[in-house]
């Protein structure tokens, strides 16, 4: 090590006044930088997956299925794929960041500073929303070349995109907090998130389903996210966008409250 520097330089109490807004901003920056540094894996790969879905399903169903009157299957599918990508990637971001920090042990760097539960929550959720939206925009930007697109009500598109991303970011936080190992988190992903997105009307209109499966779909909050989001593109949907908005707002509020309470209590984070 180097010879000691001048003593006065190390005197305590000369630190500039701390600002808690900086803490939140720094965590948001760090969480965003984390996925951005590996964007090939966190953004480009899910975009490719979305495009593959469109190519395969579009090729099979374009000439056979017309989910909404006058709407091509591929055009119908694109908003579904965009939203599915948003949901899955928002979830993946917060949940994987948290479990990695827990397993690597570097979560301690977040637990030692004077960050509040709300700051932790907002930073994790916002960074995950950013990743979800980045992937969603990417999927849209690539798939839109394969089928005509319409934007009848852009505000609905924006509202459901952000609300859906925030909801799944909060679910990801809960999963990351509850899980102690990667395989537990994978179980969340494989047995909850993937089935819930696949059975929510990403690939089909629930109107074409048998009554039991229609009722089953309507019990799934993800259905309302996708249906409301699609309304923004076609002004057609399986249920009223207002009903979707109400369900999504309530579901999002509930999972956010659970995640925030867990953080406040230090559940599985502070022993």
């Amino acid at each position, binding site marked *: 090590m180097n010879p000691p520097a001048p*003593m006065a330089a190390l005197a305590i109490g000369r630190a500039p006044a701390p600002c808690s807004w900086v803490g939140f901003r720094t965590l948001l920056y760090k969480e965003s*930088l984390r996925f951005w540094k590996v964007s090939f894996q966190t953004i480009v790969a899910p975009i490719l997956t979305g495009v593959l879905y469109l190519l395969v399903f579009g090729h099979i169903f374009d000439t056979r299925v017309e989910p909404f009157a006058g709407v091509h299957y591929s055009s119908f599918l694109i908003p579904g794929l965009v939203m599915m990508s948003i949901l899955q990637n928002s979830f993946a971001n917060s949940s994987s960041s948290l479990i990695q920090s827990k397993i690597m042990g570097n979560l301690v760097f977040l637990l030692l500073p004077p960050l509040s539960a709300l700051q932790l929550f907002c930073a994790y959720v916002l960074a995950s929303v950013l990743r979800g939206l980045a992937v969603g925009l990417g999927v849209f930007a690539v798939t839109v070349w394969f089928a005509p697109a319409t934007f009848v009500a852009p505000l609905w598109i924006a509202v459901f995109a952000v609300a859906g991303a925030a909801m799944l970011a909060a679910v990801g936080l809960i999963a990351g907090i509850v899980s102690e190992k990667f395989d537990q988190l994978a179980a969340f992903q494989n047995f909850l998130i993937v089935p819930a997105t696949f059975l929510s009307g990403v690939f089909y209109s629930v109107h074409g389903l048998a009554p039991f499966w229609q009722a089953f779909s309507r019990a799934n909050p993800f259905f309302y996210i996708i249906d409301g989001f699609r309304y923004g593109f076609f002004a057609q949907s399986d249920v009223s966008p207002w009903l979707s908005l109400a369900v999504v707002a309530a579901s999002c509020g509930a999972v956010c409250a659970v995640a925030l309470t867990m953080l406040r209590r230090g559940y599985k984070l502070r022993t």
Partner: protein
Amino acid sequence: MSIAAIEARALTKRYAQVTALDAVDLTIVQGEFFGLLGPNGAGKTTLISIIAGLARASSGRVRVMGHDVTDDYRAARRSLGVVPQELVFDPFFTVREMLRIQSGYFGLAHNDAWIDEVMVNLDLVDKADVNMRALSGGMKRRVLVAQALVHRPPVIVLDEPTAGVDVELRQGLWQFMRRLNRDGHTIVLTTHYLEEAQQMCSRIAMLKAGRILALENTRDLLRRIAGVQVALRLRGDLPPVLREQVIERYPEHVVLRLSHPREVGAALEACRHFGSDVEELEVAPADLEDVFLQVMSEAPRRSAS
């Protein structure tokens, strides 16, 4: 009286059936270099975790620089820098990014001058733009120390900072910590290297099974518990009156433990009286390791600060 750097009152932590800390009372005054010793599982890390807010006490209170660690956690955490025991790091970032981020978490946005100074002192300048993953264990340990210092905390806690660290880094680290201590920082250290604690710490607490068994000024503790060791080579037998004090026996000599240096004269007198001439005599200073073993072998009893 000035505010204590760390003040624990009746601090208890229970995990299911295990009592990790049992009504610990401890006051560490500002400017101390304090040692926390004890075998594995004694409760050292639990105590540090509660002070740092990483764990929550089952009952009792802790204050850091007068700030309660739960009710006033922001001020308490700003006053505290913790170097964790585990060699943890974030593989996504470089050393400089890591230090800037950690500084930001403490609410300090423009802190580069201080970060540079900490890096100079810990010899990290060459590694500033290297990813954490590429650093050796010793370098990672230095970054952990740097991270604990980014917000210039008045109280610094090091949880076994020299475990698995090479001699050069260990000495450099202690030199740096001594300087921080001279500049007014309170340093709290847990270590398994008793020699280190003896050299560095002005006061020592010994923990066992969640209780403080000894809490004293290092020199007094050494004097009170270990006394002095006297190696004697005699022409003749050891007088029976000294047999109880024998701690080691060799073909040529014996080692006695006397509770105070003034007993040396009496012991020599006893030998002379018995007709055994002293051919060689060596008085060794007290050793913290002896104290440690002696305290740990005693039945746990509670001791207040």
